[in-house]
């Protein structure tokens, strides 16, 4: 794989993470528990979809030819998507959405802080921009964790179940394969293994504050980076890509 191919793969992974999670968040539009939260989740969705566009635009330039950001979002099939599995899981109940955001955003914040220092100036600029938004996302996520964790018996139970159900998907976040390893050596990609300790410390602290017990390890799922996905991603894409599949090239 050439350096250009590796960078393209890396951009698509980051773009896929952002697009798929952004889509999951956008599903809350008009369905959140109350108006302010509806607006908040939609805004966070926009932040992620904005990031996806930046990574895909860069990927399109790297690929060359007729590729555009839309090529990657709308015309690839499930096996071509390389997002982390945690991003594609169905939105679940509100506690699940909050727990996923908190676990994932806590990582993304650390990731973007490092991406800022990438030798690739384009990625570094995206990192600097996204870091500011993620700081805000994490602060908000923590507040919801405390509120649901310390709320009623029901909210606490739902949140505990959510973190338990999500925990086995967090290993994948920190995996490094040959593509990433090469880019890390070049100073382009972020080494996620170096973020794990701090991530664990942050999420453990907040889970303790929220009176949650730390989920026990013992199961772990991966595959997203190789295009191996849950059934749910196909259904998500069916909705996301419908217009372009039914009317290829449609513009408005």
């Amino acid at each position, binding site marked *: 794989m050439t350096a250009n191919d590796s960078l393209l793969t890396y951009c698509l992974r980051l773009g896929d993470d952002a697009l798929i999670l952004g889509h999951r968040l956008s599903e809350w539009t008009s369905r959140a528990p109350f108006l*302010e*939260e509806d*607006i*908040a989740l939609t*805004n*966070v*969705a*926009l*932040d*992620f*979809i*904005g*990031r996806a*566009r*930046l990574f895909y635009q860069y990927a399109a330039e790297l690929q060359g030819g007729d590729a555009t950001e839309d090529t990657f979002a709308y015309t690839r099939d499930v096996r071509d998507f390389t997002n982390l599995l945690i991003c594609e899981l169905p939105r679940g109940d509100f506690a699940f959405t909050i727990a996923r955001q908190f676990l994932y955003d806590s990582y993304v914040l650390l990731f973007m802080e490092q991406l800022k220092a990438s030798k690739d*100036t384009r990625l*570094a*600029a*995206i990192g*600097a*921009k*996204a*870091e*500011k*938004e993620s*700081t*805000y996302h994490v*602060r*908000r996520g923590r*507040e919801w964790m405390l509120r649901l964790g310390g709320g009623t018996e029901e909210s606490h139970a739902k949140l505990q179940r959510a973190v338990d159900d999500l925990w086995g998907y967090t290993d994948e976040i920190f995996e490094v394969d040959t593509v990433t390893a090469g880019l890390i050596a070049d100073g382009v990609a972020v080494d996620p293994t170096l973020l794990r300790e701090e991530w664990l410390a942050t999420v453990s602290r907040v889970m303790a504050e929220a009176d949650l017990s730390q989920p026990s390890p013992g199961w772990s799922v991966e595959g997203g980076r190789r295009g191996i996905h849950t059934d749910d991603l196909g259904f998500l894409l069916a909705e996301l890509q419908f217009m372009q599949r039914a009317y290829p090239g449609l513009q408005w």
Partner: protein
Amino acid sequence: MTASNLIPLLPVEELARRRRRAESQWPEIWSLLDAVMDPEIPVISLYELGVLQDVDVRDGVVVLTMTPTYIGCPALQIMEEDAREALVSAGYSVVEVNISLSPAWTTAWLTSAAREKLTRYGVAAPKELTDQVSCPQCGSSDVSIVSEFGSTACKALYRCGNCLEPFDLLKAI
């Protein structure tokens, strides 16, 4: 030392932006664009907001450099179109807009005059340096947050404990 004793220091990137304007060969284009307002907060211009970063003319093409407030801000496209329209109707036929992410936008770039305009419009702006929030209606600092997000990505929703009115705050980032 209290905040009022501090000399407000401009972030270097904002200083550089103001210098670009002051030393620009195209002052008339900058002036024309002063009439282009933020579509959501139509009392401050794209320049005052910090979105308009640079103006240049290359081979007869006007090249504008703009930066988004938030990555996913849907207003950016409207801002581009509005800027283009303002220049085209003033006789500049070809206008190109480049979007630049670096330096990343921050509320620290807002001048006190721009903050004043926002407040009069009813959108609270965080105070320079302190990020302190006060009610744009009555000026009270007895305020509380209702939601981390308001009507657009760049705003949060607050409530005043004194006059009881809700208001938007331009979030400090």
